[in-house]
């Protein structure tokens, strides 16, 4: 089953993920502009961008366990997932800074004073070097091993992102806790020694394209 899926996926390009991501981002902004996100579009847009970023980061985090445990490889899509997630993180940050807080002193104050914002901002900072090195030239320059080491920062960034969401909510809504549980589960799976089918390469192979 898995080889058949992998063969079929060979013909599916990764680039449409960027286009769909950009269109989705723009569509959400348009909805905010026209009132489709309700009477408080700033908060709604901020939340939506943050949530989509978290979904995409979680999807990226699921690629390796999926391959290890089922043999289905979505590796060629992981860079597009990660970079699109970063796009949503940047949009999330911009909505917060420009539309929500509207002043540099408030922005600085919030990052320093509010732990959940400190965490979210830290997650963003961790993602910056990853986004910058998500290209083939960087992989060559850093070497596959160095590149993989650097990109382990994803684990910390996604975990911080999920905690950032849980920390900001009031009461016990379901979604943020589901996301945190998913992230923890996907990270925990990496701690289990992989039971890999014969002849398949290890989980660390670098994406090409």
């Amino acid at each position: 089953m898995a080889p058949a899926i992998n063969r079929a996926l060979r013909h599916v390009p990764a680039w449409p993920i960027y286009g769909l991501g950009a269109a989705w981002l723009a569509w959400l902004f348009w909805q905010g502009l026209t009132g489709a996100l309700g009477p408080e579009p700033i908060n709604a847009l901020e939340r939506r961008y943050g949530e989509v970023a978290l979904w995409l980061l979680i999807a990226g985090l699921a690629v390796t366990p999926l391959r290890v445990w089922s043999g289905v490889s979505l590796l060629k899509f992981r860079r597009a997932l990660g970079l699109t997630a970063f796009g949503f993180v940047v949009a999330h940050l911009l909505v917060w800074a420009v539309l929500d807080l509207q002043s540099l002193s408030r922005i600085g104050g919030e990052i320093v004073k509010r732990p959940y914002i400190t965490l979210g901002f830290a997650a963003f900072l961790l993602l910056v070097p990853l986004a910058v090195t998500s290209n083939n030239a960087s992989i060559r320059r850093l070497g596959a091993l160095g590149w993989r080491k650097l990109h382990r920062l994803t684990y910390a960034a996604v975990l911080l992102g999920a905690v950032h969401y849980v920390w900001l909510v009031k009461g016990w809504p379901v979604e943020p806790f589901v996301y945190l549980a998913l992230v923890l589960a996907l990270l925990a799976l990496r701690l289990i020694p992989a039971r890999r089918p014969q002849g398949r390469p290890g989980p660390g192979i670098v994406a090409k394209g």
Partner: protein
Amino acid sequence: MAHRWTNTLTRADATPKAAWLNRRQIMAGMGGAAALLAAGQGRAQALVPNTLEQISSYNNYYEFGVGKDDPARNAGGLVTQPWSIRVDGLVDRPGDYALADLLEGLTVEERIYRFRCVEAWSMVVPWNGVELADVLAKVGVQSGARYVAFETVVQPEVMPGVRQRVIPFPYVEGLRLDEAMHPLTLLATGIYGQPMPNQNGAPIRLVVPWKYGFKSIKSIVRITLTDSQPPASWNIINGREYGFYSNVNPEVSHPRWSQASERQIGGGLFSPRIDTPMFNGYEAEVAGLYAGMDLRANY
């Protein structure tokens, strides 16, 4: 004893029904630059009452779900007729009062109040209601009473949030007796002259405009006069973040976010952030209630 307090906002500030649609279109079409220019002009600019659609589509009513649009979507099934309120504790005439009996003879006034949520958003709402003091006078407050406790209805079959136990229910709230007797404190039964929408706390809710919105408990089924401070839901859930008083105070931050500024609902994607006034703008009326109290300790 109605009309003890006069609106600083007048009837003319309330948006006429015919203008609702127009306003929405203007808002939607308003450019970002224009909106940001208006930001500098402060509160006078922000004191336009919200439309009924805004007031009834952006709510916190956790019994119907934690999303802001959940109450409008889910509250349709709330059974509000018949409605009775149990009045008990330190009162002369305790009992189960039919809503109409409790309100009979009292004057329903329009009060245009600022409404400030603890989440740092705000609205301006033209409520219709009676002063809580008049209702309390009717049931006869005994001399030992020092606090008033309130309880929200629980109808699990129509309340998804109750079934999911997103917070402990029933939702309860409380006021000190002098806060409850203050002429600003309202039992509201409508908005814009219409019956209270279910998602806003039909058929009758508390409105305490100088406190964060969660103090203004919805869909009240019980009022109890007590001699000791009653429990309040958010205070039970997280006492470090939500005090019993919960007066609007720009100088005391919520542990996780600033309360110094707010955004009025309805301004669109480029809505300006405005400074939050002490006691939500009702300092002249209510500061005396807290004379000598440390508002940082009694948050």
